């Protein structure tokens, strides 16, 4: 029994995860190291990497700030509508990525509701990609911080305030240091998702090569062009980021 069940578990991950990832690397390197390096160093690939980093470096800090504010309000105070607010934070998990992209097209597209108000090009341009990335990564930090802050209770903060600390001193010296591991954990997951988001970004991007393609979109373009070796070469970068994410997750879990 024991052997059968362990066999099923290992077999499942081998067939659905390990073999597919080996296939990614095998295809990426099938013509050797030079074509691999050439594929990930093309101007389009580098532009895609840069755009992905720009989108993540705006979306992740925004959602960290939001997560801290939301956790403080929700975990430390009781107010009407608190439970609804928690559900509202979960919404990005529930809405299909394609629908997320569509919402921003409806708002900012050529005939969008806000097209007359905002004159900067948002959809089919970089700002739309940032917005879509920010939307899909909203819950990650908040969802880690709310239970962590609830579990800690307000005693330490009350003590600091009683001893004469200002609210901001209390925040920087008591609240934030106590939340560093859940914050790091949430930020890592948020970053991984920001880098890897595909569906929502795909809708708002317009697929202008070298301008509005993120790394996952660049993989898609190469793949649909039948440039499999190049597509899988660029995909290995994303696989390595995902592996690093999982490893860092483990490290954080051990240290908290």
């Amino acid at each position: 029994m024991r052997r059968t069940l362990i066999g099923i578990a290992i077999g499942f991950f081998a067939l659905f995860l390990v073999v597919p990832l080996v296939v990614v690397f095998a295809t990426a390197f099938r013509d050797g190291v030079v074509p691999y390096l050439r594929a990930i160093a093309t101007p389009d690939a580098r532009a895609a990497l840069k755009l992905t980093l720009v989108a993540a470096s705006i979306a992740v800090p925004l959602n960290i700030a939001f997560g801290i504010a939301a956790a403080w309000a929700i975990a430390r105070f009781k107010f009407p509508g608190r439970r609804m607010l928690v559900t509202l934070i979960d919404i990005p998990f529930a809405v299909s990525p394609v629908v997320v992209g569509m919402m921003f097209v409806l708002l900012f597209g050529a005939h969008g509701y806000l097209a007359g108000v905002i004159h900067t090009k948002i959809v089919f341009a970089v700002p739309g990609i940032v917005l879509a990335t920010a939307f899909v990564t909203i819950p990650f930090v908040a969802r880690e911080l709310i239970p962590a802050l609830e579990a800690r209770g307000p005693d330490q903060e009350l003590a600091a305030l009683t001893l004469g600390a200002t609210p901001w001193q209390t925040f920087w010296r008591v609240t934030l240091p106590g939340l560093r591991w859940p914050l790091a954990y949430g930020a890592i997951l948020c970053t991984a998702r920001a880098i890897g988001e595909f569906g929502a970004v795909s809708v708002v991007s317009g697929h202008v090569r070298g301008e509005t393609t993120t790394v996952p979109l660049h993989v898609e373009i190469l793949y649909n062009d039948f440039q499999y070796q190049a597509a899988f070469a660029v995909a290995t970068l994303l696989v390595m980021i995902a592996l690093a994410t999982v490893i860092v997750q483990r490290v954080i879990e051990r240290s908290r």
Partner: protein
Amino acid sequence: MKRALPGFGLSLGVTLTYLGLLVVVPLSAIALKTSSLTWPQFWATISAPRAVAAFGLSLGASLVAAAIAAGFGTIVAWVLVRYRFWGRGVIDALVDLPFALPTAVAGIALTATWGPTGVLGRWLHAIGIEGAYSRVGIVIALVFLGVPFVVRTVQPVLAALDPRLEEAAATLGATRAQAFVRVVLPALRPAITTGFALAFARALGEYGSVVFISGNMPQRTEIAPLLVMTKLEQYDYAGATALALVMVVASFVLLIAINSLGRRTQRRDRTRRRAPAPDAVPPPAAQVIA
């Protein structure tokens, strides 16, 4: 009322402003766009044969995949909690990988592996099953995505379950299978249900991993999110919105159901004295993902 802690106004203000601008305003655009359709137009869009086929496929494939994921996920959780074996840590870490792996990468990797010429797909192909560009392929991608949800909801509940309950069942004459079905499974059922619902909800809206493996043939392997995408590319925004509205309503209902599922089992376990295990509570919905 004077509150003991500072910062309520600021933190709630930031939270509501941010969610208002980034979530509520965009969502209301869907409602606004839908209201530009008349009821017959709306109905014609969502009841068109291609739309019905896409909804049916999304629903059916997601249900099948979530059910398979519930089975595999429970076995994986069981193995991780109850057995110590070489490579257990690696398996435990691998569980989180589908969460971290970009869906487009998962899509092309699974297609290359399970497609008719892939290292695994060619064996399926030989016995007449297509592992890619088919409904089987869609289910493969969705099972891949769904299993981590089930493992991560069942695992903590199983870890908190006292093995002495099974020992007691055994001393009272139960076989191992009986002990599992009568003692362990009832305690795990809320967690498995929650995991199933999470996997199902995620599968319904999934796009990235499915588009590569499905083949995208209208009325055969075209999922609902892809049909929305197609309509957007044809600048049929009203039609896309009508389909999206159906999907959004379905996922909201699911989200609320999942959240109340978690809460109800929590409450029941707290009030019921003879509950099999006081700690056997699945974590709240999205906490598993985050």
